[in-house]
C-alpha cells in the first residue's frame, strides 16, 4: 500500500498528512484496547474515591448511637437506612473477623480505614473503624460493584477525546513544520531585501526603509545570499551579453586583418613581384592572428561547454608533466622556469587526464601571463605537490602581479588584470575542478611574490 502511495506523495505537506492519519488510526486502535484494559482500574479509582468520601459521613452519623446504651437501638435502623441506598451493594457492621461477609473474608480489620476486594474481585469495599478516642466499637463496611464500568458511551467519549487531542497535536506540529520549511520570506524581510537590492542598483532615492522586527537571521542570510547570487548572475549574464558582442568584435578584428591582407594580395595578382610580397604578408598576418582567433573561439566555447568527465586511475604526476610540456609549447615566453616539487615518482589519482591537462594548462598560462604583464625578463613558476593525509594539494606559484581584491572573485568569468587574456581561463579551471569534485583556491605566493593557486583533490575514487 505504501509503494502505491509513494507516487502520489509529491509534497511534504501531503506526506505529513498521510503519516498523521496513519498514526492517528493506530493510536485510536491502541486507545480502544487501552480503554478496556484501563477502564476497570479507572473505575476502581473513582469508586475508591467515592467510598472514601462517603464513609466518614456515614461513620459520623452512626457513631453517636454507640456512645450511649440508650441510643444503641438506633444502630439497626441506621444500618437499614444505609442499605436502602441503591448506590451501594453492601453495608455491614463488623464487630469481629467472623462478622465479615464470606466474599470479603480477606479484608483486614485495622485501626485505619482500608480497602479490600471480594473474592471474585468485582466488588470494592472500604472498612472504616467506628471509634472515639481509644475506644473502638466496631467497623462499618461499604461495598460497591466494579462491574458495568464499561459503556459504549464511555468508549466513544474516551476515543473522541483522544482523537481530538491527536489532531490538535498534529495540527500544531504540521503548522510548525510548515513554518520552518517554508521558503517564504516574511514581509519585513522582503522590505529589507528590496532595500538592499535598490542599494545594489545604485538607487539613491530610496523612500521606504525597512523596519525589521523579525529576528530569524537564517532566513535573512538565505534571502540576502540568494539576492546577491541572483544579482551577480544577472550581472554576469549581462556581462556575458556584452562580451558575446565583444568576442565577436575581436574575432571580426582578427578576421579583418586577414581579409585585408588577402585583398591586397588579390590586387597585386598581375604583378608577380608585388604578388609574392603580398602573399608573404598574408601568410604572416594569418600566422599571427589565427592562434589568437583559435584561443578566443576555444575559450568562449569552453566557458559555455558542459564538462563531461571520463575519469581513470592514472599517474597524476604524468598528467602534470604533460601539462607543463603543453604550456611550454604554447607559451610566448622564452623558456620559462617551471620547478616541480613532488614527493613520489608515481601517484595514481582518479581523474580525467585531458580535462586535467586543460586545468593545469590554464593555471600555468595564467601564471605566464601574470609575469608577462609585470614585464619580467625571466618568468618562473613553481609547481608544488604535497600529500596531506587522504588529500593531494598541487600549488601553482608565480612571480606575477599577484591578486588584488577578493581572491574568490578571480574565478568569475571575464575577470582579468592582465594585458592579454579574456578572463575565462580561471573560470574554465574552476569548472573542471568542480566537475571533478575538487577544490581550487587562490592566494598569494610568499616565495615568489605573485599569485598562488592550489588544487586539492582526494586520493580515493572520484565517483
Amino acid at each position: 500500500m505504501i509503494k502505491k502511495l509513494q507516487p502520489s506523495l509529491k509534497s511534504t505537506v501531503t506526506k505529513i498528512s498521510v503519516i498523521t492519519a496513519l498514526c492517528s488510526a493506530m493510536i485510536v486502535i491502541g486507545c480502544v484496547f487501552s480503554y478496556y484494559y484501563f477502564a476497570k482500574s479507572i473505575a476502581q479509582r473513582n469508586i475508591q474515591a467515592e467510598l472514601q468520601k462517603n464513609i466518614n459521613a456515614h461513620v459520623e452519623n452512626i457513631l453517636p448511637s454507640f456512645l450511649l446504651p440508650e441510643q444503641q437501638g438506633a444502630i439497626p435502623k441506621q444500618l437499614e437506612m444505609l442499605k436502602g441506598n441503591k448506590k451501594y451493594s453492601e453495608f455491614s457492621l463488623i464487630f469481629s473477623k467472623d462478622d465479615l461477609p464470606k466474599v470479603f473474608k480477606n479484608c483486614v480489620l485495622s485501626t485505619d480505614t482500608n480497602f479490600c476486594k471480594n473474592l471474585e474481585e468485582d466488588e470494592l469495599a472500604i472498612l472504616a473503624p467506628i471509634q472515639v478516642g481509644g475506644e473502638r466499637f466496631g467497623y462499618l463496611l461499604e461495598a460497591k460493584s466494579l462491574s458495568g464500568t464499561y459503556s459504549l458511551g464511555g468508549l466513544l467519549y474516551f476515543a473522541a477525546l483522544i482523537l481530538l487531542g491527536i489532531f490538535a497535536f498534529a495540527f500544531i506540529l504540521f503548522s510548525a513544520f510548515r513554518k520552518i520549511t517554508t521558503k517564504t520570506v516574511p514581509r519585513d524581510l522582503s522590505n529589507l531585501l528590496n532595500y538592499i537590492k535598490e542599494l545594489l542598483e545604485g538607487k539613491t532615492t530610496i523612500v521606504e526603509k525597512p523596519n525589521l522586527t523579525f529576528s530569524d537571521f537564517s532566513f535573512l542570510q538565505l534571502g540576502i545570499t540568494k539576492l546577491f547570487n541572483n544579482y551577480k548572475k544577472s550581472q554576469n549574464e549581462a556581462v556575458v551579453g556584452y562580451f558575446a558582442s565583444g568576442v565577436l568584435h575581436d574575432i571580426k578584428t582578427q578576421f579583418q586583418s586577414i581579409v585585408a591582407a588577402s585583398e591586397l594580395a588579390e590586387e597585386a595578382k598581375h604583378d608577380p613581384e608585388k604578388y609574392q610580397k603580398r602573399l608573404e604578408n598574408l601568410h604572416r598576418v594569418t600566422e599571427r592572428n589565427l592562434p589568437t582567433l583559435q584561443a578566443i573561439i576555444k575559450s568562449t566555447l569552453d566557458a559555455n561547454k558542459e564538462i563531461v568527465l571520463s575519469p581513470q586511475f592514472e599517474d597524476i604526476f604524468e598528467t602534470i608533466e604533460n601539462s607543463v610540456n603543453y604550456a611550454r609549447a604554447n607559451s610566448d615566453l622564452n623558456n620559462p622556469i617551471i620547478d616541480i616539487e613532488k614527493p613520489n615518482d608515481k601517484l595514481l589519482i582518479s581523474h580525467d587526464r585531458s580535462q586535467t591537462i586543460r586545468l593545469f594548462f590554464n593555471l600555468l598560462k595564467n601564471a605566464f601571463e601574470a609575469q608577462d604583464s609585470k614585464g619580467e625578463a625571466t618568468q618562473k613558476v613553481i609547481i608544488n605537490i604535497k600529500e596531506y593525509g587522504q588529500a593531494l594539494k598541487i600549488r601553482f606559484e608565480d612571480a606575477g602581479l599577484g591578486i588584488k581584491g577578493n581572491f574568490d572573485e578571480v574565478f568569475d568569468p571575464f575577470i582579468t588584470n592582465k594585458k592579454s587574456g579574456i578572463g575565462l581561463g580561471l573560470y574554465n579551471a574552476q569548472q573542471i575542478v568542480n566537475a571533478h569534485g575538487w577544490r581550487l583556491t587562490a592566494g598569494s605566493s610568499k616565495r615568489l611574490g605573485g599569485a598562488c593557486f592550489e588544487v586539492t583533490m582526494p586520493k580515493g575514487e572520484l565517483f
Partner: protein
Amino acid sequence: MHKLIFALLFVFTLSAYAKDSVIEIGLASNFSEISSSSSNPYGNYFREGIKLAIEHKKDELARKNIKIKLKEFDYGTSQLKVVSVAKEACKSQVSLVLGYVYSSHALLAAPIHQKCKLPLFSPSATANRLSNFDSYIHLGAFSNQLQGEVLADIAIKELKAKKALAIYAADCAYCTDLTKTFKTAFEKEKSTTISEIPTLSTDQNFKEIAKKAKKIKADIILVPNHELFSARIISALVEEGIKVPFLGGDGWGNHGEQFLKVLQNKKIEGFSLSHWFSEIPTKENKTFVSQYKASFKKSPNDTAVLSYDSMSIIIEAILSLDDFSRAGIDNALNKVRSFSGVTGNFDYTTKGAPRKSIVLLKAGKSQYKFLKIINPKASK
C-alpha cells in the same frame, strides 16, 4: 496611742483574711448551635438564667467575699464534642460545671466528670441513669422515671387507654429512656399493650410511620421527643387521619408556640409535662418572670428558669462553704436536702434526681394551656 496602733493592725489583718474568694464555674452548653427544640438558641436562655441568679444573690456573696467567675465550654450539637468539652473542663481551673442541658449530653459527660472528680450540675437532664452515679453528678430536674409514671397514669386513668403506641427517635437517649419508663409503667396495668415505632432524629418524612401508626389503632400515642420533631410526627399522623390523644414529656417545652406553629392549626388533643409554666401564680414565679423580662427584655422559658434554680442551689451550697475546692463544693451540694425554687420544691432526700412537682399542660390553639401541678409522692 498603743491602742490605736493595735486597732489599726487588727483591721488590716482582718482585711487580709477577708480577701475575696474567686470560684470559677464552668457553663457547658450548645452556645454555637440552635437546639432542635428552639428552647435554647445559642445557649442564651441558659446563660441568662444563671446570670440572673448570680445577680439576685450578689449581696449574700459579697458578704462572704465570694466572687463567681464564669467560663463557657461550647459543644454545639455534637455528642462527640461533649466528650472533649468534659475532658477540657476537667483539665481547667473550674471548681464545678453547670450545664449539659440534654440528657444525652449529661450521660456522656457524667462518667468523665466523675473520673476527674469535677462536680457536674445538670439543670434539665432527666435520664434515669444519671441518678445512678454515686458522686459528683447533681441534677436539677425530675427524672424520666417520674415522667413516665405520670404519663402512664394519665393514659390509663384519665384517657382510659388500653392500647398505646410510642413513636420515638431511637438515636435520642432522652426519647428511648422516657419510652422505656412509660412502657414499664403502662404495662404494669393489666390488659394494656404498647407498640413501638422507632425512627431516627434525622428522618424528614413520616408518611410511612403515619400509615403504620394508623394500622395499629392505638388509643393514645406517646411522642416522647423534642419539641419540633414531635410536632412534625404528630402533624403527619393527623394528616393520615389519626385523631387519638397524643402524649409528650418535658421535651415538648413549656410554651408551645413553635410546636403549634408546625402543626399549622391542626386541632389535636395533646398533653405534655413540663418543669414550669410562666403563669403559675406563686410569688417566686411572678418575681422571677418580671425580673427576667426587665433584665433581658423577653419572657423566660423552662431552660432559663431551671438554670436559674440550679445556680441558686449552687450559690446556696457555696455560701455554706469554707472549702472551695472541687471536693468541697461536691460535699456541700451533697448536703442539700431541699430547696425552694421558682420551679417548685426540690426534694433531695433520695439519691439522684430531685423529686419535684410536674406541670401538666394541654395543647391549645396557639400555645399550651396550664392544667394542673402534679406533686410527686413524698419519699420515705
